[in-house]
């Protein structure tokens, strides 16, 4: 029900630690914004292409990553051509495409589980005031609550359709929120009863 965007593989990029990949992404993106030059775009383009090749990803993965932003990018391109010139418009759109593709490179080669493990490993070294166990609890509770909220949403919707209230969103959301809040309270009591604190 809840699958991540991971593409299976065993490349250097797949095996790299999530933290390293995120740091590399941050450096990459900062670099793209810091050095406003065509040469930087070209180098970055080669780097992203090399990354896709090393990770064994196909062009359709890149297309899928760019598709959600497609119409916004078209709009920005049109505005830039109209207000500035074709060169700036192309520059801006190429930079967006590279940022999105570089980010998708991290997402496609890392499972959500590896990220969660990475977060937990990172928390081990966090200073004492960071509520480490609470953060880990919150993440795992959210992953448990997502299917719960979805099933409550479907149940309440069916009940309201039976009452002829299918177009009334307030009549849908209020029972969903109240029911899941009650469930959350029971969950909190169950956790407290097991001396989590």
């Amino acid at each position, binding site marked *: 029900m809840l699958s991540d965007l991971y593409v299976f593989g065993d490349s250097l990029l797949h095996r790299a630690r999530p933290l390293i990949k995120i740091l590399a992404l941050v450096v990459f993106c900062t670099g793209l914004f810091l050095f406003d030059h065509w040469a930087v775009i070209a180098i970055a383009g080669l780097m992203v292409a090399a990354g896709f090749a090393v990770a064994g990803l196909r062009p359709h993965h890149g297309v899928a990553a760019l598709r959600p932003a497609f119409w916004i990018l078209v709009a*920005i391109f049109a505005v830039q051509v109209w207000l500035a010139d074709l060169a700036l418009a192309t520059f801006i759109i190429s930079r*967006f495409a590279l940022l999105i593709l570089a980010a*998708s490179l991290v997402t496609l080669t890392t499972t959500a589980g590896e990220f969660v493990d990475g977060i937990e490993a990172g928390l081990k070294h966090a200073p004492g005031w960071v509520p480490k166990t609470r953060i880990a609890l919150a993440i795992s509770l959210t992953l448990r609550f997502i299917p719960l909220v979805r099933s409550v949403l479907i149940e309440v919707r069916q009940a309201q359709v039976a009452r002829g209230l299918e177009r009334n969103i307030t009549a849908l959301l209020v029972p969903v929120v109240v029911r899941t809040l009650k469930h*959350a309270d029971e969950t909190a009591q169950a956790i407290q009863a097991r001396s989590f604190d």
Partner: protein
Amino acid sequence: MDTRDTVFIALFAAIMAALAVFPPITLPVIGVPITAQSMGVMLAGGVLGAWRGALAMVLFLTLVAIGLPLLPGGRGGFGVFMGPTGGFLVGFVLSAFVIGWLTEQFWHSLSFPVALAICLGGGVVVLYAVGVPWIATVAKISPLTALSGSLAFIPGDIVKSVIAAGVIVTVRRAYPIITR
């Protein structure tokens, strides 16, 4: 912060995720699809209050960033923050905080008009105050151009504020979480 707060934060992060699969409603006149997800931002602030609401958004965005497809259309991963509209996502945190803080201030006299004003201020004005300059900066366009490009979404956001305000006021009576 006790266990109950942690559980509520996790719950509203999950509600955000569940609202992404809610079928989008397309406004008849202008044809812009509105998704239910930004109602989740208003509900998190208006039901949980400032800190818990904002932390629920941080948790939700963390799960999006690590690649879970929790945004409408099954989007997720770091790429969504790199795109032009990343500011609207980051703005969820501030938006939920402002809505939560204002709701806490007006908790005892929270009526539908007050809740609506809070949702419009925190859910629309604050969100656009983060999202529009973000687009303007990363796309190198003037803030005014970016704002006019976003205007098509305002009617949908007003509809969502009306719904969220109604839900916040009703949940306050039925199952109040903010206690002051």
